[in-house]
C-alpha cells in the first residue's frame, strides 16, 4: 500500500526528524557539562561553519523570494533564520534546539499546506478565475484586438524618433512613419530598399539587437493610421511585419468597466470576479476573489449530487472500516500462526508475506485491474477456466474486488505490526494465565488480544483515516465505476468521497476545474476524519486504563 509506509512513519516519527536529533542530544549534554574555557574547540568552529551555511541558504531564500515578489515567503524566511540563529547560539534554549527542526517542518509541510487549502476554499480559484484582475484585463484586451479583415501586412522597420519608438512601413511603395502620439504620415525622403525602409531622416533605425532589448516596448506599441482612432492602428508581433488592427474591447480603469466598441455593450466588474453586462453576459476571463462560504453552499446545494452523495458516503465508511477489519484479522491470524515456534521455515514465510507490501500500490492496483478483466483477465481465463465473471463491471462484485485487492495490499502491514506486538508481549502474564489453568482460547481472548489492541489501535485508526482517502486504489482499479445507472453525474458504485471530490470539482477534466470547491470539500472530509479519529482515540484511552 503506497502510503502505509508513511503511516508507520506517522506513528513512530511524526516529523521525520527524531532520528536526526537523537545523536546531538548526547553530544550537547556533554558540551554543556564541560566548562567553556581555553582555546576555541574544533566543534565550535564546525558549528559556526554549519550555521554559516544555514544563514547563507536563508539569505539565498530571502533574495529569491524578493526577486519573485513573494512577501509572505520572504517574511517567514527571515523569521526562520533569525529564530534558528537565536536557538543555536543562545545557551538558554536547550529544548528548542531539538524541537526547532521538527517545528519548522511542521510549519512548512503541514500548517502552510492546510492553511493554503483553507484559504483557497474561500476563493473562486478555478477555470475562468485563474489569476489577478490586472492579468485578466490584460488578457481580455489581448484577446479582443482584431486584425482588420482583408488588410495587408506591411514590411515594417522599428525607428527611434527623438526618444519615442515608431514604426516605418511601406504602403504602395511609399514610406510612412509614425509613433504612438503621431499618426502615420508619408516621409518622401526616406530610403526604401527591397520594399523595406532602411533609413529615415530625423530618426534612427533600430538594429535587431536594439529591438530585442526593447522588445516589450515594441510589442506594446500601437501606431494610429490617422487622427480618427476608429481607423485602427499598426502593430507588430515580430518587428518584421506590421498589420492593421482595431480593438473590440475598451478598458476604462476609472469606471472599472469594459466596453465592447462594436456593439456598445458595457461590462461592469462584479464582486464575484468577472465583467458582466446588464443583460447578464459575462466576458470569458475573470479573476480570483474571496467568495466567502459560496463553495460550501455549492457543494451541498446541487440536487443532482444529493442521492449519489448518500450512497457514496455509506460506501466510503463501509470500505474504510471493512478494509481495516479484514486486513487486521488476516494479518493477525498469519502473525499468530508464524509466531508459533513449531512452524518450520518461519523466516522464509514471513519474507514472502511481505512481498505485496513492497510493490507500489498504484502499480499493484493497475495490475489487478488487468487481472480482473472480464474476458482477458488472468483470474477468469486461467483460474476460473474461461468464465466471464464481471469482476469490475458489476456493482457488487466491483465492491468485492476493491475490498479484495485492498486486503491483498494491506495485510502484510498488519502482519508486520502484529508480529512485532506479539513478540513484545510480556512472557510473565502469559505464564500466569497458564498457571491459572486458562485454556488457549481464553488466554488469547482475555490476555493476548487486549494487550495487542493497546499496542496497535493507534495504527488501526490511522489506517482507517488512510483508507477513507484511498484515492489511488479506487482511481487505478475501477475509476469509480461501474457508473450509477440512475444518477445524472459521472459517479459510480465504487467511488469514495475523495474520488467524488476529484470528479465534482472537475479535476478529472469532466467539467470546468474549480479548485475552490475542491478545497472546500477536502476540508469537509478532513473534518469527518478528524472527528472520527478523535472519538476513537478517546475510546482507546479508556481501553488502555481498563487493561
Amino acid at each position, binding site marked *: 500500500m503506497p502510503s502505509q509506509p508513511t503511516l508507520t512513519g506517522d506513528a513512530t516519527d511524526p516529523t521525520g526528524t527524531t532520528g536526526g536529533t537523537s545523536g546531538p542530544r548526547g553530544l550537547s549534554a556533554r558540551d554543556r557539562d564541560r566548562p567553556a574555557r581555553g582555546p576555541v574547540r574544533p566543534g565550535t568552529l564546525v558549528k559556526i561553519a554549519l550555521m554559516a551555511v544555514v544563514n547563507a*541558504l536563508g539569505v539565498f531564500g530571502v533574495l529569491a523570494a524578493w526577486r519573485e515578489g513573494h512577501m509572505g515567503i520572504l517574511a517567514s524566511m527571515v523569521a526562520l533564520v533569525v529564530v534558528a540563529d537565536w536557538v543555536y547560539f543562545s545557551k538558554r534554549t536547550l529544548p528548542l534546539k531539538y524541537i526547532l527542526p521538527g517545528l519548522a517542518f511542521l510549519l512548512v509541510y503541514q500548517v502552510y499546506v492546510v492553511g493554503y487549502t483553507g484559504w483557497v476554499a474561500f476563493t473562486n480559484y478555478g477555470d475562468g478565475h485563474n489569476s489577478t484582475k490586472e492579468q485578466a484585463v490584460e488578457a481580455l484586451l489581448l484577446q479582443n484586438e482584431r486584425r482588420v479583415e482583408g488588410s495587408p501586412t506591411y514590411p515594417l522597420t522599428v525607428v527611434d524618433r527623438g526618444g519615442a519608438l515608431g514604426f516605418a512601413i511601406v504602403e504602395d511603395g511609399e514610406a510612412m512613419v509614425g509613433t504612438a502620439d503621431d499618426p502615420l504620415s508619408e516621409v518622401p525622403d526616406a530610403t526604401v530598399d527591397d520594399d523595406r525602409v532602411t533609413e529615415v531622416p530625423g530618426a534612427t533605425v533600430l538594429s535587431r539587437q536594439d529591438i530585442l532589448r526593447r522588445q516589450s516596448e515594441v510589442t506594446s506599441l500601437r501606431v494610429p493610421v490617422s487622427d480618427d482612432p476608429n481607423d485602427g492602428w499598426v502593430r507588430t508581433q515580430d518587428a518584421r511585419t506590421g498589420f492593421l488592427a482595431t480593438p473590440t474591447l475598451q478598458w476604462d480603469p476609472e469606471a472599472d468597466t469594459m466596453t465592447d466598441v462594436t456593439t456598445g455593450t458595457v461590462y461592469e466588474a462584479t464582486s464575484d470576479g468577472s465583467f458582466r453586462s446588464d443583460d447578464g453576459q459575462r466576458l470569458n476571463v475573470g479573476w480570483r476573489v474571496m467568495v466567502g462560504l459560496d463553495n460550501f453552499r455549492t457543494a451541498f446545494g446541487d440536487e443532482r449530487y444529493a442521492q449519489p452523495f448518500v450512497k457514496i458516503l455509506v460506501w466510503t465508511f463501509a470500505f474504510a472500516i471493512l478494509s481495516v477489519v479484514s486486513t487486521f484479522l488476516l494479518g493477525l491470524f498469519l502473525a499468530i500462526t508464524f509466531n508459533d515456534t513449531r512452524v518450520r521455515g518461519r523466516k522464509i514465510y514471513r519474507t514472502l508475506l511481505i512481498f505485496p507490501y513492497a510493490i507500489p500500490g498504484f502499480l499493484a492496483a493497475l495490475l489487478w485491474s488487468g487481472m480482473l478483466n472480464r474476458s482477458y483477465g488472468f483470474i477468469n481465463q486461467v483460474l476460473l477456466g474461461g468464465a466471464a465473471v464481471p469482476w469490475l463491471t458489476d456493482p457488487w462484485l466491483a465492491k468485492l474486488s476493491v475490498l479484495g485487492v485492498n486486503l491483498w495490499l494491506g495485510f502484510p502491514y498488519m502482519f508486520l505490526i502484529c508480529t512485532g506486538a506479539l513478540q513484545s508481549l510480556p512472557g510473565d502474564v502469559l505464564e500466569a494465565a497458564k498457571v491459572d489453568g486458562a485454556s488457549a482460547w481464553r488466554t488469547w481472548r482475555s490476555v493476548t488480544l487486549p494487550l495487542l489492541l493497546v499496542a496497535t489501535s493507534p495504527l488501526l485508526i490511522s489506517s482507517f483515516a488512510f483508507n477513507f482517502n484511498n484515492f489511488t486504489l479506487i482511481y487505478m482499479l475501477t475509476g469509480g465505476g461501474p457508473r450509477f445507472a440512475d444518477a445524472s453525474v459521472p459517479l459510480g458504485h465504487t467511488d469514495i468521497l475523495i474520488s467524488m471530490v476529484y470528479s465534482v470539482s472537475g479535476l478529472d477534466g469532466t467539467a470546468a476545474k474549480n479548485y475552490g470547491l475542491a478545497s472546500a470539500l477536502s476540508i469537509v472530509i478532513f473534518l469527518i476524519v478528524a472527528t472520527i479519529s478523535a472519538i476513537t482515540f478517546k475510546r482507546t484511552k479508556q481501553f488502555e486504563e481498563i487493561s
Partner: protein
Amino acid sequence: MRRGIPAAAVTLGLALALTACGANSDDTSGDASSAPASGGSEDSLVVWVDETRQAAVEVAAQAFEDENDVDVELVLKNFEDIRTDFLAQVPTGEGPDITVGAHDWLGELTSNGVVAPIELGDKTEDFIDVAVEAFTQDGQVYGLPYAIENVALIRNTALAAEAPATWDQAVAAGQAAGTQYQVLIQTTPEGDPYTYYPLQTSFGAEVFAQNQDGSYTSDLTMGGAPGQAFATWLQAQGASGVLSTDVTYDIAVEAFKNGEAPFIIGGPWMVDQFEALELSIDPVPSAGGQPALPFVGVQGFYVSAQSDNALLANDFLVNYIATDEAQLALYEAGNRPPALASAAEEASSDPITAGFLAVGEESLPMPSIPEMGSVWAFWGVTEANIISGAAEPVAAWDKMIADIQGAIGS
C-alpha cells in the same frame, strides 16, 4: 558540532520548499523558467517541449540562435503535465514563453487568459485549413500548428484487397477473410467516443453545432433522431458480436498485428507496430449513410500571455517553426502529418501519411470549447453500456443528452 546538521537540513528544506511554493510547482522547470522572469537574461527564450518533440525543436532553435544571437532554452516536460503546469505557472510569471500543446486545450487556456493570439499574417494560407481552424477562437488564431492527427481505416491488404465503402461491406469482407475479428475498434468498458466518432457522424449526429467560421457553439446536436439511430446501430453491432467492450487498445493492436482482422480503426500512432504488414489507409466506412468524419486533433505551439519575450516568441514560431525543415523534422519525430501544406505534401510521398492526411483534410477539428469536458464524462460510458447490452439504446442515449445538458448548464 553535529547539531548544525539538522538545522542545515531544515533550512535547505525550507528554502527548497518555499521557492517551490512560490513557483507554484514542484518540477524541474521551476528553476529553468524563472530565468526570464527574474530579469537576468531578457534575451533567453524558454520553450516547453516533451520528449518526442525535443530533438526536432532543437534544430529550429539552433538556427534561431545562430541568426539572432539569443539563447533558446528547451525545458523537457511530460506532455500530460504541460497543460496544468502552464495554467498554474503563467499567472505567477514563472511560465515559459512558448509551450507545445494540443488544440483542444484552447478553450481552457483562453478562459484563464494565459495564451496570447498569434498573427500568422499571410502565412495563414500556407497551412492546411483545418489546422488553423482548430487553433482559431472568436476570429483569433492562438497557436502555431505543426501536426494534425486523426483516425482512419487501416487495412491489411493481404486480408482485404479492396477498401470497403460501407460498414456492412467491411464486416462482410471480414467474414470472407475468415479471421477472428471483422473490424477492430478499441472500446473498453468505459467506451472510446473519440475512435467511434466517425461512425457517429455517418449518422449525421455531430457533437456540437458550428458557427459559420467553423468554430463550435455550445448547442448540443448529437441528440434527436440521428443520435438515437446511432445508438440503435451500436446495440445491434454489439449484439451480433462485431463490437465488444472487451477490446482495449492493446488487444486491438495486438490482434491486428497478428493478422486476426483485416481492418482496424486507428491513427498514425499505431502504424509503427504494424511494420511487418502491407497496409493501406482508407476513409472510415460509413455506417449510417453519410460520410464518416473523424475528429481532427491539431498539435502546435502556444505563446504565453505573460511572456516578456513576445517578440522573440512570435518571430521564432512564425519564421522558424512554420518552415518545411522544422515541420518535417517534427513529422519524423512524431509520425503525425505536418500542418504546413508544403511540408505535408512532401511527407505525403509516404502513402500511409498521405492516407491519413486525405481523411483529416476533409474532417472537422475536435471541439476545444470547455463544455467538451462534460460531454466526455457521459459519452463513452453510455456507448459502452449500449454495446454491451446493459442499457436500452434510445433511452440511454436520451438520458445521456439530458445529463450532458444538465452538466453544461450547471
